[in-house]
């Protein structure tokens, strides 16, 4: 009994260490910002490696302990953060097959990427900024992976989204990266509304945001029968929308190639391996809700297969390696989603783990692709054969052309979203804005003041303060 308690306490401590190390890393970065100290590249690299390796070691120990003692799941409660008679906010983590698999994958890939990035970004002006965002991303991923309440998941989810967007805009001296970052942010925020509403609904249905209240207390993937009601249908749909946004499923797929603006290590880890699988993880976590409604499972299957087909077609015509890999990644994500819809949980999890590792390797080798190609040619003594077009050539010529255009334009998704959603919304608010300005001018009888020149005196004053 005593030994069992010790093991459980040890698991709690190790679980908290997994989350605690990224928090500590961020606190160190925050302190250096507040104290106006600039860390050297070597210090940043060491700090990051230490934090990630300790987290990884803790996760491995957790897995070993749980396997050894046959513990299927272990909740880690951080207590009730906010508790009123009407509202209950709880941060809680859980160690089980799903969470530990995903967190081990995250930490393993993050360790690799940290090592890769220290060399890849050497003497880059945004070296420190990259690792701050990396730490935010790591914290978000670990929090989301271990979450046992919807609030904890939401917190991690948002951190991952923000870090991803700021990393897309990493090379911010050009207008294109921030522009693409903003586009991705818009899609993320839109889909986050669904997750937020799902969180609210969960509170109302269960009186708390705990996943075990929703799907029962048994260890994943086992679950008790879920009582089906209209709320559950809405809840399931909201979760699917949130997952579709994060995993770039249809109709939100247009953000994935845009995300390739960021540096290669971030593309590899975020859009090739981890971030893009977060939606898959969410669907795996709430899979009992899908089981309770066959029509919802059917929607998930159709969504997954449609996304996979679309990504396959779009990926065939890409001319740059990162975009081609992004669509290849989406093809696999679509298939994994379909597997979840079919109820093949373990297969989906294994597929996710294998795919993430393979894709990280491919992304990291992407900058050296020409070199690899030359090596391959030297090894086989000839040029590799061009890939054949297995079935496209059998189509009639006009259909081939249409298909090619469809793939080249990435399914016209960008244009459709822009034309059907973005433009009408912006046009509406621009019209309101014009009315507002006219009303103000009529009322005030004064033109708005032109943008003033920089206050030179203020600049001088600022200069005087410099050492």
């Amino acid at each position, binding site marked *: 009994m005593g030994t069992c308690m010790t093991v459980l306490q040890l698991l709690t401590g190790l679980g908290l260490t997994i989350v605690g190390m990224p928090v500590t890393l961020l606190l160190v970065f925050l302190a250096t910002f507040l104290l106006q100290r600039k860390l050297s590249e070597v210090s940043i690299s060491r700090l990051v490696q230490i934090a990630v390796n300790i987290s990884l070691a803790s996760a491995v120990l957790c897995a070993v302990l749980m396997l050894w003692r046959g513990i299927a799941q272990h909740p880690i409660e951080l207590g009730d953060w906010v508790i009123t008679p009407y509202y209950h906010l709880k941060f809680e983590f859980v160690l089980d097959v799903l969470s530990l698999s995903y967190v081990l994958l995250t930490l393993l890939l993050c360790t690799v990427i940290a090592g890769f990035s220290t060399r890849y970004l050497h003497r880059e002006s945004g070296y420190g900024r990259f690792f701050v965002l990396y730490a935010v991303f790591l914290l978000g991923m670990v929090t989301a992976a271990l979450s046992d309440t919807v609030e904890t998941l939401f917190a991690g989810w948002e951190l991952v989204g923000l870090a991803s967007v700021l990393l897309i805009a990493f090379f911010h001296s050009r207008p294109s990266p921030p522009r693409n970052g903003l586009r991705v942010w818009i899609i993320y925020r839109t889909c986050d*509304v669904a997750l937020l*509403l799902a969180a609210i609904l969960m509170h109302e249905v269960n009186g708390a945001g705990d996943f075990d209240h929703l799907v029962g207390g048994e260890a994943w993937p086992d679950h008790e029968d879920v009582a089906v009601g209209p709320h559950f249908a809405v809840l399931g749909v909201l979760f699917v929308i949130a997952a579709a946004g994060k995993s770039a499923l249809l109709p939100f797929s247009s953000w994935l190639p845009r995300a390739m603006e960021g540096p290669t290590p971030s593309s590899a880890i975020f859009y090739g391996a981890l971030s893009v699988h977060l939606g898959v993880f969410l669907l795996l976590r709430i899979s009992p809700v899908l089981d309770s409604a066959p029509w919802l499972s059917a929607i998930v299957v159709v969504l997954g297969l449609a996304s996979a087909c679309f990504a396959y077609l779009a990926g065939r015509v890409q001319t740059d390696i990162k975009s081609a890999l992004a669509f290849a990644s989406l093809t696999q994500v679509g298939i994994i989603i379909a597997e979840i819809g079919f109820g093949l949980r373990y297969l989906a999890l294994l597929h996710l783990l294998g795919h993430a590792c393979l894709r990280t390797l491919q992304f990291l080798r992407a900058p050296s692709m020409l070199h690899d190609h030359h090596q391959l040619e030297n090894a086989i003594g000839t040029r590799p054969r061009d890939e054949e077009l297995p079935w496209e050539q059998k189509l009639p010529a006009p259909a081939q052309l249409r298909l090619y255009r469809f793939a080249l334009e990435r399914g016209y998704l960008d244009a459709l979203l822009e034309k059907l959603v973005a433009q009408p919304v912006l046009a509406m608010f621009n019209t309101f804005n014009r009315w507002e300005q006219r009303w103000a001018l009529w009322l005030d009888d004064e033109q708005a003041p032109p943008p003033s020149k920089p*206050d030179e005196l203020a600049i001088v004053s600022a200069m005087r303060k410099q050492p």
Partner: protein
Amino acid sequence: MMPSFLLTSLLALPFAGVLGCLLLHEAWSLRISLGTLALFLFGSVAAMLWLPVAAVDVASMFVLDTLAAPLLPVFALVHLLSHLGTAKTVTSSGYCIRSLLAAGLSALALCCHDEYVLLALLVLTVMLPLWELRERGRSSRTFVVYMSVFCLLLGASLLSGLAERTPLGVGLLLLALMVRGGVFPAHSWMPVLFTSATYGTSLLFVLPLMEILVIVRVLITTIPTWMLDIAGVLCLVSAVYCGGLALVQTQVSRFFAFLCLSQTSLVMFAVMLHTANGVTAALCLWMSAALGLTGLAFSIRALESRFGAMSLSEYHGHYEQVPGLAVLFLITGLACVGFPGTVGFVPMELLFSGSYEKGLWVSGTLALAAMLNGIAILRAYFSLFTGKRQQTSISLSVTGRERAGIVLITLMVFGAAWLTPSVVDSRHRTAEELLGLQPTLHAAR
């Protein structure tokens, strides 16, 4: 006796500062006002921690109760940060006096338990932006028109039997407060004010959210529910409408004004929910929104004092020159929209949760407003700090005063998030007292 004296001294402190500014040479005004506001902040924190809440009153009119005690340091901080963020070149003696007067009047209003005095203080605060607009030679017609409507409605409310709490009296007062709070469709004065007056004066007029103070002190237990429901819908519309307008602005000042309107509408909506959960959310959101918006204004002002008024329709790329301000802009902007880990997270969660009893569509609309604000903030961030490589021959990095402000705001945005459980707990008790679900401590004593 001693606590009453201390409270009197604290409330009189900003006015003593005004006296100092008037009597001493203009060159001393900035130091006096900064010193007074710093002392005021220190005194407010001390009062919150050590003075026995609800046992301290001044002439049975000004009471440090559970509502006022935690808000007083927040107000003091907002005033101090607003002053710290103002460039030395624009801090005239008049500006310092206005800041101190704003601090004094808002502190008095916060502690005031006499509704007539509270309403009089509300009217007095209107004079400060008007004074500045006149001093700067800017047209004040829009502001005057809207504030006249506010005063007229206030007067009509008093004449229509506010004292007896007749439906007409309380309805007119609610209308007056919505005009002053800039709730749709009576919001047009705020972008004009932010464009014409300085950020400091505009912010100190808007952010204390005096209208919410009057609603919770005077109206909340007596007003018919249907009136609150209608006002709630208008606040909801206002939050989404102004969030959308913040998204399409090309002037930074108008972007900030609409963002401010959207955020304050969310706080007002939470009050209109008229439930313990809603009012708790409002009281928490009041503090987090004030802090977040002050920080955002701080970074914008510091930026504009270096580069002049900027357009959001192009990229400026100032990150490399002022990384500290870029980081501050981002974290305070995200705190405003309730980003996890910041001071705004739990209040927004409380608001979403509290809104559910009105229907999922209400929660959805609130989420839409938060989404629009979030997009508007990141759009402004990218426009101001990225997209270009800017180089200057002189260093434009932050000054010592700005550095102090950045450190203070950052610590509050992240540090206060850890205090959330105790703050929510105390705000919940206060909300129940205000709604009459619990006897007030003051009445009990």
